[in-house]
């Protein structure tokens, strides 16, 4: 494995072949906003919040799934990137029904925090107000599709850490929904081990423990010991 040198935000940094821009940036204390990324899980580039500019390239690159190159010059913060990130967060808010004031994850939500971080004070886009359901058939947990941002952290933690692969995604575009097994109620799933890892990694109030009310969710996140233990294998 060879060492590559590059610049991020004008700083000279180094990383190993195969390392991502996000990984090298964080190792060097350069923050890049993320949502679908969770240390210890594989990266899928689902949310696009971590997009960066690479000198000489017109398109933007998701830092979490873009590996570094020798001599690469990466820009993390620019007006263009800030506008894109704000629009991405706005799209996430307007695509489902995120009512922070009555959400179980109020004040404990990565989407809510991101809105502040990117400076989102209102939505220019119309709210889609989709029909979305709550599946409360599981004995201990529930899923509120109104709050889901399709980051797929739950899908990945269930597959990669628990080894159950109960969760997956069905449908496309705004019709995409998380499903348990082949689209049966969560409570009927015979692959779910009820470990609760999906609930812990959920960035919003979509996955929740029953018995908690508004603003009572306490995600034990993000650096669960088994995620860190797994990290070596995903790189």
């Amino acid at each position: 494995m060879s060492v590559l040198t590059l610049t991020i935000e004008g700083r000279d940094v180094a990383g190993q072949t195969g390392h991502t821009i996000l990984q090298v940036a964080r190792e060097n204390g350069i923050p890049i906003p993320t949502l679908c990324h969770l240390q210890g899980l594989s990266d899928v580039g689902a949310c696009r919040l971590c997009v960066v500019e690479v000198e000489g390239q017109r398109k933007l690159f998701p830092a979490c799934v873009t590996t570094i190159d020798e001599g690469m010059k990466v820009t993390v913060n620019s007006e263009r990137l800030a506008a894109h990130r704000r629009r991405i967060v706005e799209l996430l808010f307007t695509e489902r029904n995120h009512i922070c004031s009555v959400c179980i994850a109020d004040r404990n939500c990565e989407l809510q925090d991101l809105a502040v971080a990117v400076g989102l004070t209102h939505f220019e886009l119309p709210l889609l107000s989709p029909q979305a359901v709550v599946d409360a058939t599981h004995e201990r947990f529930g899923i509120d599709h109104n709050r889901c941002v399709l980051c797929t952290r739950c899908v990945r933690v269930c597959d990669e850490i628990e080894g159950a692969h109960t969760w997956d995604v069905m449908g496309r575009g705004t019709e995409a929904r998380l499903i348990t097994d082949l689209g049966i109620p969560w409570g009927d799933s015979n692959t779910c081990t009820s470990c609760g890892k999906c609930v812990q990694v959920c960035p919003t109030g979509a996955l929740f423990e029953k018995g908690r009310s508004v603003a009572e969710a306490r995600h034990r996140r993000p650096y669960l010991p088994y995620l860190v233990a797994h990290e070596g294998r995903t790189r």
Partner: protein
Amino acid sequence: MSKPRLATIWLDGCSGCHMSLLDMDERLLDITERVDIVYGALVDIKEFPEDVDVTLVEGAISSEDDLRKIYEVRRNTRILVSLGDCAVTSNVPGMRNQIGPAAILERAYLENVTINPQLPGPMVPRLLAMSRPVHAVVKVDVFVPGCPPSADLIHSVLDDLISGRVPVTAGVTCFG
């Protein structure tokens, strides 16, 4: 120089934003010294006045009455402030948008009522098909999210506006 004319209006909200405004405590004395409060839930004036410098709007636009009022407010206001999540996002009033007004009224006034169930008559403003944020209907100049926005935030927004500064709310307050 005459004092800035301040109005507040309460549309489809819970009054929590007005409560938060009152929660400024003794700073209210300072604010009321510096402005003329010309209309609002705390003022006994029936018609929205002309020539208002700043209007704080609490609540979403949910009924025909809200719609009529917000047009009147916009016509007579220089700086219109969407105060709180209902005004900014439609928030809790907007939760009915995926269900529709007919089903909501039936649930609230017929299904769940044991004594004399009946739908509201002509005295109650008709609900619009959707409950919408204020800026979906009229131009909004300042957005103050929060449910409710804190008294400190409302104070700093008012202080800025009264002093002729543009308040910056991005990055200092969250939804919810």
